[in-house]
């Protein structure tokens, strides 16, 4: 076995299980006497429920129960809570309309759950759900952002005027206005961020169980954060104290944000299990996923940059409409505010920034965080705007970026939009990416492509993001209703093997490997003697889960802290055993040694002494070797870097082919380069999906037109180029590992790189901006429209 510590490309311990079909997912779990739930969902975007006739469904074979919103109300079941409260410009709180688990008076989006049928088999439950007769009175509806805020638009919630959830702002408006007044040039861009449907490989599932002897509830669920689900569902929805509620998130097949939130089905199966005293399972069909998993993005924005004569950015003004969908999902309100507007400084030293965000209700599936959450929206806006500025000022786009970069000696750098960057070197990642992508040789490749009748373009994006969320006090002051620390418990067993209980949750990220490498490095324990346990509220003291690229920066730091405590205690035990002063005992490579002597004790000897305390300082120290630590980050972490895309467009068909993609990222210290590369590649694949392929399409009324894989284009292997991944790291200055995070950078940096390349390829056709996704018919129309102009020149 070679080097396996921090920095080694260790093969993923979990992959044998996953690749050989032996993962254990929620739907693989079955309990004796289990029943199956099928949910009848709204087939229309907006309607009043005049009545639900359950008689035929109840009489259907195998049916154990039929429940509606009225039944839940009778049991005093609460609505699904929102975890974040944003305040309006005037200081008043956002509109927070009720989010019933099962619809009560109205349905507000296609897919809104109306009733649940519970039966002996899945098919019987579905048969009976079809037999429900729902008497609807259709209401006018809207799905588009601009339509929803237009005067006289139908109201999604009768009590929310103008469908406005909040009207929020950040930054110094007066300073920005003044800068615009003295600017030499102003460049303005209207742009949209397309709506996406996450589509994790494993559809959501939930299994509720109830033990009538103990009164204990168990929920097995496809979640990225089981403790958060226990907290939200226990406290706000079902009123079950933590000691009677266990939430288990076993192997989870991808999340990308969509499995963070507390969903109706989790509450339904848990509540129903208690009522029926039988386990109840629900597993989403793929088509159900399309209309019930939270969607991502969906912004409409206007951005304006004030410039001086040399192309220096003087001020940025942004106004954004963000779609919340029909209800507030768990983290929805914070995504277009604190995860978006605060990122609009990017890598640039723009001295004044003002951002207004209006969050809007529409008759569509709730929208929440999706891989990148807010930062892809900010990066796309900024990096498209910078390219347009370059075009309109005649300044080379790379030079323009360099000219406005935050300098290496400016850290810590305070932005005008709240964040303080601790470290970075944007020139280093840019230079490295330009070199790897052979940017200098592009003109030749473009000419060669032109000779073949193809339009070739190159696009650069220099981005920054904030992750490792988050300092609890800071986010608390911004409206978070939870802390965002992480917890780790390190248990050194008597013979020296180690179990780590982490509040982070792995749903594809490879924690079982990365975290084991941390333990291996710090405690010197062999990789196969380390076990990582996650996803069970009965085993792990507490946890805030995995999202926002926080697992290593926050969860890993908690482990380091817990291991520090283990070592501190171990040194005291070792000092006793070796009859030395504690201060003279050092710990390195798994051994406690006495400085200046050849005395040494292995960790396993110390742990044995701790559990078999015959010769032990029992007066001063408790037996055992197990420590828990909570780590609350001091700041966000700020990964950044440069992505370069090279594309070729077939002018006859409008088809774009991504020829090359280069990502050079600063993710801080790299624990496992292979896993970093995999994370970046996956993120870039999703970014290319957003830029070229994916679009959740609603008609004006709110019918979902792209409701299946037949119509929603997920990126596939043959849509993707060879993705070259590199890292150029500066260390995070405020966490013990120096890590920043790599889970989302790929999805954040890539869409504007692709779109800048597409616009570059079509430069001769008089195009200034193209909305995502850049589909073939869209580009073909642009090319058609541009041809006469080209011919005239």
């Amino acid at each position, binding site marked *: 076995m070679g080097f396996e510590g921090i920095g080694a490309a260790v093969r993923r311990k979990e992959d044998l299980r996953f690749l050989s079909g032996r993962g254990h997912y929620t739907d693989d779990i079955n309990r004796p006497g289990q029943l199956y739930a099928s949910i009848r969902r709204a087939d229309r975007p907006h309607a009043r429920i005049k009545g639900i006739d359950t008689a035929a469904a109840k009489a259907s074979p195998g049916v154990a129960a039929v429940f509606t919103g009225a039944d839940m109300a009778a049991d005093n079941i609460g609505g699904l809570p929102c975890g974040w409260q944003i305040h309006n410009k005037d200081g008043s709180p956002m509109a927070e309309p009720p989010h019933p688990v099962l619809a009560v008076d109205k349905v507000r989006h296609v897919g809104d759950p109306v009733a649940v049928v519970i039966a002996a088999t899945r*098919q019987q439950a*579905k*048969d009976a759900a*079809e037999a429900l007769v729902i008497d609807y009175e259709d209401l006018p509806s809207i799905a588009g952002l601009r339509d929803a805020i237009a005067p006289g638009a139908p109201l999604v919630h009768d009590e929310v005027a103008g469908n406005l959830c909040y009207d929020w702002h950040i930054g110094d408006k007066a300073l920005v206005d003044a800068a615009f007044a003295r600017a030499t040039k102003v460049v303005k861009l209207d742009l949209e961020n397309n709506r996406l449907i996450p589509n994790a490989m494993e559809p959501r599932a939930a299994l509720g169980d109830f033990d009538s002897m103990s009164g204990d509830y168990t929920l097995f669920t496809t979640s990225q954060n089981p403790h958060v689900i226990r907290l939200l569902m226990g406290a706000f929805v079902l009123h079950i104290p933590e000691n009677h509620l266990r939430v288990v998130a076993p192997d989870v097949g991808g999340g990308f944000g969509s499995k963070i939130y507390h969903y109706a089905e989790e509450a339904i199966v848990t509540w129903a299990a208690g009522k029926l005293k039988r386990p109840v399972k629900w597993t989403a069909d793929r*088509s159900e996923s399309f209309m019930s998993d939270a969607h991502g993005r969906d912004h409409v924005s206007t951005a304006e940059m004030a410039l001086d004569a040399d192309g220096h950015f003087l001020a940025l003004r942004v106004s954004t409409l963000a779609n919340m969908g029909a209800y507030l999902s768990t983290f929805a309100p914070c995504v277009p505010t604190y995860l978006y507007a605060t990122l609009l400084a990017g890598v640039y030293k723009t001295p004044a920034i003002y951002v207004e965000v209006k969050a809007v209700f529409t008759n569509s599936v709730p929208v929440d965080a999706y891989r990148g959450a807010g930062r892809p929206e900010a990066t796309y806006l900024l990096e498209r705007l910078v390219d347009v500025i370059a075009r309109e000022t005649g300044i080379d786009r790379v030079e323009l970026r360099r000219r406005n970069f935050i300098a290496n000696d400016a850290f810590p750098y305070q932005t005008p939009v709240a964040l303080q960057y601790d470290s970075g070197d944007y020139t280093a990642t840019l230079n490295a990416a330009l070199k790897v992508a052979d940017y200098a040789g592009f003109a030749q490749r473009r000419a060669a492509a032109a000779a073949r009748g193809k339009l070739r373009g190159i696009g650069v994006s220099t981005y920054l993001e904030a992750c490792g969320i988050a300092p609890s006090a800071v986010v608390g002051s911004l409206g978070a209703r939870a802390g965002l620390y992480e917890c780790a418990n390190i248990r050194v067993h008597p013979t020296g093997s180690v179990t780590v209980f982490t509040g982070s949750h792995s749903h594809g990220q490879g924690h079982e490997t990365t975290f084991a490498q941390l333990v291996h490095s710090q405690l010197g324990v062999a990789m196969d003697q380390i076990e990582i346990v996650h996803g069970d509220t009965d085993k792990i003291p507490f946890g805030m889960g995995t999202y926002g690229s926080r697992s290593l920066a926050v969860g890993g730091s908690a482990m380091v802290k817990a291991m520090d405590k283990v070592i501190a205690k171990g040194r005291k035990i070792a000092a006793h055993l070796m009859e030395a002063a504690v201060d003279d005992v050092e710990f390195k490579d798994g051994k406690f040694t006495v400085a200046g002597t050849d005395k040494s004790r292995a960790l396993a000897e110390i742990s044995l002494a701790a559990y078999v305390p015959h010769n032990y300082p029992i007066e001063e120290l408790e037996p055992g070797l197990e420590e828990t630590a909570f780590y609350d980050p001091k700041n966000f972490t700020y990964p950044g870097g440069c992505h370069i895309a090279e594309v070729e467009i077939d002018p*006859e*068909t409008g088809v774009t082919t991504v020829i090359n993609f280069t990502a050079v990222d600063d993710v801080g210290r790299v624990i496992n380069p292979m896993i970093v590369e995999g994370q970046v590649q996956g993120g870039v694949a999703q970014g290319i999906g957003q830029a070229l*392929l994916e679009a959740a*399409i609603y008609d004006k009324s709110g019918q979902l*037109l*792209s409701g299946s*894989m*037949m*119509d*929603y*284009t*997920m990126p596939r292997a043959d*849509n993707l180029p060879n993705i070259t991944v590199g890292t150029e790291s500066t260390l995070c200055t405020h966490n013990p590992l120096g890590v920043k995070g790599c889970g989302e950078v790929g999805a954040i940096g890539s869409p504007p790189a692709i779109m800048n390349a597409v616009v570059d390829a079509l430069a001769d056709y008089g195009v200034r901006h193209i909305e995502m996704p850049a*589909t*073939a*018919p869209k580009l*073909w*129309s642009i090319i058609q429209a541009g041809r006469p102009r080209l011919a005239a020149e």
Partner: protein
Amino acid sequence: MYDFAYQKPSNVADAVAALGADPEAKAVAGGMTLIPVLKQRLNRPSVVVDLAKTGLAGITAGAGSITIGAMTTHAAVAHSADVQRVIPALAALAGLIGDEQVRHRGTIGGSLANNDPAADYPAAALALGATITTTKRAIKADDFFQGMFTTALEPDELITKVEFPAATKANYQKFRNPASRYAIVGVFVAQTAAGVRVAVTGAGQGGVFRHTAMEAALSKNFSADAIADVVTPADDLNGDIHASSEYRAHLIGVMARRAVAAAA
């Protein structure tokens, strides 16, 4: 999926009898169309009659033609040395259908019987002038396709085999729907003893159709240039979230020219 009875007859006659005995009975071949429809509860057959054991799979090369049994999978056609030799464009077309898994289940009989307006085989059958043999008769491709998801087949009539005349030149160009990977436009160009034919799938409101204007131009001069100015009217073409009818009309021209240029 609703409950249904399942039968697996061991010969064609029994399969036909089973279908004839019950108007709600449905044949299943590869199941690549039928099973998704059942899973979505869009169809409720009383009996599903599986054709797997009816002995309808196999490829034979005759003098100037290729005959493919109804139960032959797309993968078998794609990999057949005979098909590759006699009508390479047909083997290539089969290799473009769906993905590897679909090609190993889906069958030519199922595809033709289903007549999906975006399916690939109908273009080959129509352009090559195939003859579709059923349990009752032989049907010319021109008479077989009767509009979207509609064919000349009667409820208890099964396709048994399809005979494709050899082509001196043929090629199929497919512009895929990026999501489903079916054809947004597919154009099959064939020059056979019977003349030049151009069949278009994916685009027509009535399913696969012959492009007679292109056929006329190519009959005089089999070259891409000959059809460069042939305009395809968009009026009778499909428009949806993936492609407008105008875009489809344009793509028909592009795909046809590419097919002619590549025809071998």
